[in-house]
C-alpha cells in the first residue's frame, strides 16, 4: 500500500502510455460486456423448447400439382393412410405449420366475443394450428388436462371460410393468460370471432411457428383446431419409430411419390428432420453468438498483448532504477508487487471508465435495436475478468523486472 504514491509519481512521467492502456481496457470492457450479453440472449433464445418431442420427428412439405381446394382432401387422406401404415412410422399428421417453421396463422384470442363497433386489443395474441387427432401423438405433445380430439370432431374446411365454434386444445401458456384462475377447461375462447370455441384440452407447451422477437410476447400461445385445410399446400409431420430416422428420411418421400406422382416436394427443405428444422431456424442466432464469442476472445488477447508490450518496455526502460532499488534493499517480491500494483491502478482507472462506457453503449443499443437492458452482473464479471487479465498479462514482464540484479545500478549503459 505504501507503494502507491511512488507508483503514481512514476505514472505521471508516462502519461501517454498509462492513458492508452487504461483506454484500451475501458473500450475492451465496454465491448466485451455487451458482446457477452448478446451471446447470453441469443443462446437463451436458441435453446428454447418447442414443447414437441423433437427426436424421431420428420417434417415434409408437400404441394399438389393439378389439384386444389376440395380435390386435395382425398389425396391427403390417401397420403396419411399410407404414411401411417408404413413400417417404421409410428404416427403421422397433417398440419398447416409447426414450431420453428417461420410461417403460420396468427390472430387474437379472447374470453369475450369480438365487437365490431368497439374495437379493443384482444386478451392474447395466438397462433392457430389446423390438424387432426393424430397431432398430439405425432408431435409428442404432453396433454396436462382434458382430452385429445375425437376422430369424428375432425373436419375438412376451406381455409377462406370456416367458423371456429369447435372444440380446441390450447397451450398452458394461453390457458393461463385467458383464464388466470387456472380453470380454462370447458371454457369458451373467441378466436377473432363472435362464436366461441370450447377448450377441451391443454398441452404443457407448444411454441408458435415464429422465432423472431416480434413474436416474443406470444411465443407459447397456441391453439390446435380439429380442422384439416383444403388447398394445394400442406405439411406432414411424421413420427418414426426409434432408430428408423435415417431410413425414413429417404423412405417417406419415396412412399409419397409412389402414392401419387403429381406433387412437388422441394429439394431444399422439403424433407427435414426436426433437428434440421431447429438448426435452420436458429442459424443466424447461433452465428451471431459464435461471432461475438470470437470477437471477445480476440479483443481480450489483443488487450493482453498490448499490456505485455507496454509493460515490457517500461521494465526495459527502468532497469537502472530497479537495480538501484534492489541495491537499496528492495526484495524481488517488492519489485514484482510494484509492477502488479501499477497495473492494478491503471486497470482500475480503465474499468471505471469502461463500466460507464459499457452501460452507455448498452443504452444506445437498447434505443436502436431490439435489446434488453444490460444486467450489472455482466459489468461486474467483465470488470473482474479484465483486472485479472491485466494482472496475468503483466506477470511475465514483472517477473523479468524482479530478476534484474542489484548490480544493474552500477552500470551506466
Amino acid at each position, binding site marked *: 500500500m505504501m507503494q502507491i504514491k511512488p507508483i503514481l509519481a512514476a505514472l505521471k512521467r508516462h502519461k*501517454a*502510455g498509462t492513458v*492508452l*492502456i487504461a*483506454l*484500451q481496457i475501458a*473500450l*475492451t470492457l*465496454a*465491448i466485451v460486456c455487451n*458482446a457477452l450479453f*448478446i451471446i447470453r440472449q441469443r443462446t437463451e433464445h436458441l435453446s428454447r423448447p418447442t414443447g414437441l418431442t423433437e427426436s424421431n420427428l420428420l417434417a415434409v412439405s408437400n*404441394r399438389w*400439382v*393439378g389439384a386444389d381446394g376440395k380435390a386435395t382432401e382425398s389425396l391427403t387422406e390417401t397420403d396419411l393412410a399410407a404414411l401411417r401404415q408404413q413400417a417404421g412410422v409410428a404416427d403421422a399428421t397433417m398440419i398447416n405449420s409447426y414450431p420453428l417453421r417461420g410461417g403460420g396463422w396468427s390472430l387474437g384470442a379472447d374470453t369475450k366475443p369480438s365487437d365490431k363497433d368497439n*374495437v379493443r386489443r384482444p386478451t392474447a395474441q395466438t397462433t392457430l394450428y389446423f390438424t387432426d387427432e393424430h397431432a398430439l401423438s405425432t408431435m409428442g405433445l404432453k396433454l396436462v388436462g382434458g382430452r385429445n380430439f375425437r376422430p369424428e370432431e375432425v373436419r375438412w374446411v376451406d381455409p*377462406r*371460410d370456416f367458423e371456429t365454434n369447435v372444440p380446441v386444445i390450447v397451450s398452458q401458456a394461453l390457458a393461463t393468460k385467458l383464464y388466470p384462475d387456472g380453470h380454462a377447461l370447458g371454457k369458451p375462447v373467441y378466436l377473432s370471432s363472435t362464436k366461441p370455441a370450447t377448450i377441451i384440452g391443454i398441452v404443457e407447451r407448444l411454441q408458435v411457428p415464429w422465432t423472431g422477437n416480434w413474436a416474443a410476447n406470444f411465443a407459447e400461445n397456441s391453439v390446435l383446431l380439429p380442422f384439416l385445410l383444403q388447398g394445394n399446400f400442406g405439411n406432414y409431420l411424421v413420427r418414426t419409430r426409434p432408430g428408423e430416422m435415417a431410413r425414413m428420411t429417404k423412405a417417406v418421400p419415396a412412399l409419397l411419390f409412389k402414392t401419387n406422382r403429381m406433387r*412437388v416436394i422441394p429439394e431444399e427443405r422439403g424433407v427435414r428432420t426436426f433437428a434440421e428444422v431447429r438448426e*435452420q431456424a436458429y*442459424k*443466424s442466432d447461433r*452465428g*451471431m453468438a459464435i*461471432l*461475438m464469442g470470437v*470477437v471477445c476472445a*480476440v*479483443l481480450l488477447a*489483443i*488487450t493482453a*498483448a*498490448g499490456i505485455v*508490450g*507496454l509493460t*515490457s*518496455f*517500461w521494465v*526495459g*526502460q527502468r532497469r537502472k532504477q530497479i537495480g538501484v532499488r534492489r541495491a537499496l534493499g528492495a526484495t524481488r517480491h517488492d519489485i514484482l508487487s510494484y509492477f502488479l500494483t501499477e497495473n492494478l491502478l491503471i486497470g482500475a482507472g480503465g474499468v471505471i471508465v469502461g463500466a460507464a462506457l459499457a452501460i452507455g453503449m448498452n443504452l444506445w*443499443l437498447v434505443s*436502436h*435495436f*431490439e435489446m434488453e437492458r444490460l444486467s450489472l452482473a455482466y459489468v461486474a464479471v467483465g470488470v473482474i475478468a479484465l483486472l485479472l487479465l491485466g494482472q496475468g498479462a503483466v506477470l511475465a514482464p514483472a517477473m523479468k523486472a524482479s530478476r534484474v540484479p542489484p548490480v544493474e545500478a552500477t552500470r*551506466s*549503459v
Partner: protein
Amino acid sequence: MFGYYLQLALRSLGRNRVLTTLMVLALALGIGACITTLAVLRLLSGDPLPGRSAQLYYPQIDPYPKDGYVPGESKPQENLTWVDANELFAAHRAQRQALVALGSAKIQPRDAGGRPFFGDAVMTTAEFLPMVGAPFRYGGAWSAADDAAGARVVVIAGFLNQKLFGGANSVGRTLRLNGHDFRVVGVLDRFSPQPRFYAINLGRSYGDGDGVFLPLRAGRAVKLDPYSVSCWEAADIEHLETAPCMWLGLWVELPDAAAVANYKRFLDGYVREQIARGRFHRTDTALPDLMQWLRDENVVPDDARLQAGLAFGFLLICVTNTIGLLLAKCLRRSREIGVRRALGATRGAIFGQFMVEAAIVGLAGGLLGLVFAELGLWGIRHQPAEYAELARLDLSMFVFTFIVALLSALVAGLLPAWRACAVAPAPQLKSA
C-alpha cells in the same frame, strides 16, 4: 530521404519482430472485421437500380377503416387495393408507371419427363421492364394493349431460358404456367436488382431474380395469387379484385422535383376525394423514392448494423493498441533519436521517419486485413441469409481497405511520432 526512412523503419521493425507482428496482426484483424461487415452493409443498403432509382417513386395511401385511427400517428400502407391501384394507374399522372405483384407460378417443362416446379413470377404492366431498364437478349416487353386484353404473353429471365430452352432464342415459343399456355415475347439478359425492390418482404429478396414476368390481368386469369395479401376485414381472397385487401404496388417514374410535388398533390387530392365519397377515413399519404422506400422497409437487418458497429469498436481498440505499442517502441529509441537530432536531423525528419514506420505497419496490416476480410466474407457466404452468396469484395472495397488501413496506422503513428520529435537531444546524450 524517403528511402533512408524506409530503411530505418524496416530495420527498426525487424529488430522487434514479436512487437511488429503483434501490431500488424491487431491492425489486420480490426481492418478485416470492418471491411467484412462494411461489404455486407454495402451489399444490403446498395442501390438496386443505379442511375434510375432517384426517379422511381412509390405512392402510398391508407384505405384502413377509422377504428383506432390517431391522425399523425399512423403510416400509410405498404400496398394498394386493386381498386385504388387501378384508379391511380388509369389517371396516368407519371411519365411511366407500373403495377407490380409477386407470386409463385407453376412452370411445366415441355419435355415429358420434366417435373413441374414453382418459380417466382412478377405480375406487372407493360412499362415495368423498360422503366427499370431491364436488358433484353431476345424480343422485348409486351404492350399496353396486351395488358388491357390480358394477353397470355410472358417475358422470361435468362437463367430460365437456359433451363427450359437451352439458351436458344425462345421468342414465339410457348411456356406452360399454372396449366395455361403463354407465348414468350422476350428473354432478359442478366437482370437481378439487389435487393428486388418491387417485392415486399425484402429480407428474402436477394439472389438470381425472378423467372417470369407477365401481364397482371393474364396472371390473375390463370389464378396466380400474390404472395403478400393483407386484408383489413374478413375477405374472400379468391376474388382479390373486389376484396378489402391490399396486394399491389405502384411504381411511378417522376423526372424532377416539380413532377414529384405534382404527383404528391394528385395523391392527396385522390385521398380527399375518396374520403368525401366515404371510401377512405385516413388522410396519410407518402411518396418515397426507391432508396427511401428501402429504408422505410428496414431492408438492412439489425444484426448487420450491430456487427458493423462492433467491428468499428474492434478497430478502435486495435488502433489504440497500435498507438501504445508504437509509442513504447519509439520511446525506447530516445537515445537513437537524440543522436540523430544532435547530428543535425530536424524535428520534421524525425517525425517523417516515425510516420514512415507507422505507414509500413499500416500497409502490412491492410494487406493482411484483406486476407482476413476475404476469410470473413467466405464465412458470410456460408451463412443461411439469401444475400449471403453475394458478399464479395470489389475493387473499390479493395482500395478502401488500404485507405482505412493506412489512415488508421497513420493516426496511430501520430502521437508516437510527435513524442519522438519532441525528444530533446542533450539529456539523451548526457546519460549515455
